[in-house]
């Protein structure tokens, strides 16, 4: 997992973001984790990072249900970005609604759909697939 420098988590659920950070430590993910509680904050960050040539996250874990700008609205903006390198996106949601899964599948940019709770194995898989995408 050395190739991943920065991972990004976009989720308004503070308990969940706390737990994922803790889980990442448990699976020995020692690099940088950026946490955003809303889609628009993450978009602002990515926009300025692209502009300044800053190192971008290689993986984004994206929640669907969020206030102000939800996960879908984030994706609709994200796909307009001109990225210097691929960013792997995983959706992480509590939703077991098939419609959400289908909608996620309609975005080419979305690699996978994980239903919360996220297990340690899920997390390792997400980070590994991001690494595979980069090869």
């Amino acid at each position, binding site marked *: 997992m050395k190739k991943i420098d920065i991972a990004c988590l976009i989720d308004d*659920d503070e*308990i*969940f973001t*706390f*737990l994922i950070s*803790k*889980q990442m430590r448990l699976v020995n993910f020692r690099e940088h984790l950026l946490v955003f509680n*809303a889609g628009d904050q993450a978009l602002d960050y990515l926009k300025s990072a692209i502009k300044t040539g800053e190192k971008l996250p290689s993986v984004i874990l994206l929640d*669907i*249900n969020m*206030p*102000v*700008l*939800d996960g879908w*609205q984030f994706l609709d903006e994200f796909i307009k970005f001109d990225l210097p390198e691929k960013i792997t996106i995983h959706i992480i*949601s*509590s*939703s*077991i*609604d098939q419609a959400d899964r289908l909608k996620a599948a309609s975005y080419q940019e979305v690699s996978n759909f994980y*239903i*919360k*709770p*996220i297990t340690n194995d899920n997390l390792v898989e997400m980070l590994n697939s991001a690494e595979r995408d980069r090869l």
Partner: protein
Amino acid sequence: MAGLGIWERNFLEGTFYWNKIIFQIMEVDDDYKGSIEDVILFYREPAKVRALIDKAIVSGLPEKGELEVLTARKTQKWVEVRVQAELADGLCTRLYGTLTDITDRRLQAMVLEEREQRFSKAFDHAPIGMALVSLTGGWIKVNTSLCQLFGYTEPEFLGRTFQDFTYPADLESDLEHLNLLVAGDIGSYTMEKRYYHADGHIIWALLSVSLVRSETGSPLYFVSQIKDVTDQKNSMEIISRQNDRLLNFAHIVSHNLRSHSGNIRMLTSMILEETDPAEKETLVQMLDGNAVSLLETLAHLNEVVKVQESSADTRVRIDLANEVERGLNILSASIRASNASIVKDLDDGIAVVFNPAYLESVLINLIGNSLKYQHPERRPEITISANMNGGVPLLIIADNGLGIDLTLHGHKLFGMYKTFHRHPDARGMGLFLVKNQVEAMGGRIWAESQPGVGTSFFIQFAPLMHEKN
């Protein structure tokens, strides 16, 4: 049997003549010879024959009449009798004329007349609206049901066309169908369309139209059947709305209940694996917090279910201005704290039929939102106005607050747990409940908004006439 019967009676010479046709019509033997009085008795109403003869004598002109006869063999027939009299010195010397068997023609006419009467009865007393409509759309004939359905009297119909009654968006499709009908491409058509009632409200109708043509095939007029399906349409809308709510509900259960239970599951597994007692304590605290918010979500869901269960019995007639006053009193502390100016522009005496607790919730939520999402750079100004809009009470609550980007968030505006501002008190419950409460009472709610300018909420209440029923 066809043929012209010829008869003559000469009083001077005392002669009597019938041609063969008359013998056949009257079904008598060839040697029959009757006096004029005998002959008159063949007629069902002898007085009529006498009157006809008298008329001919007086006028001196050919006279004719249609009369019923009973022949020698007791066959009932209809005949056309022509009579002309010859006079000398004021005395009738000769009577002559013709006799035609018109039984077939009479029967046909009677069948036609009966058919016409039957159609007329079916038309007038049909439980659905029926009309004969001219090729250009003018009402030619309308029945009682249609008058009742549209709220016009028959004379009021006759100066108008169906186009005048049709809801504009539905006119083109109707006209296209009529053209196909006239062109002979279709034999009839049925469509759902909207009409205006005399008092302005919209009627949903199922319209069936066919075309009556002349014997030569040229189009004469349309026969339209118009069935009121407004109740059905409304029921469908209620069902579809309930369906939406049910889906929304399932969505909430899927997202929000599962997010709590997901967190709980993650926490418990971490607690079980944690060895550091201090860290374990932190996790247990978080577990407790999660349990509390899970209960809160359940309470919210319960509130939603309560709104769905509310029935019409909970509705009473409420004075809108009074209720707005009450709502403002309840919010008076927040209004004072935010130094908001409240402008009231409510027409007098507007009553709505609503559940009182819901109306309070609707007013407090909307006015409360205007206070909560005030613009940081100006004094909040909230305008509450109400008027009767085509027999329907309309309430508008407008503010000069933060506003919402409706192109971005419009579809989520009234969704549960949808929030649009990063406000600490934004829970995403208020507008969701307001919408549910308004719709449960048969009303409609929508919003107009511009970010940085302000937001207006419009509530259209159920028309008051429902109360009369």
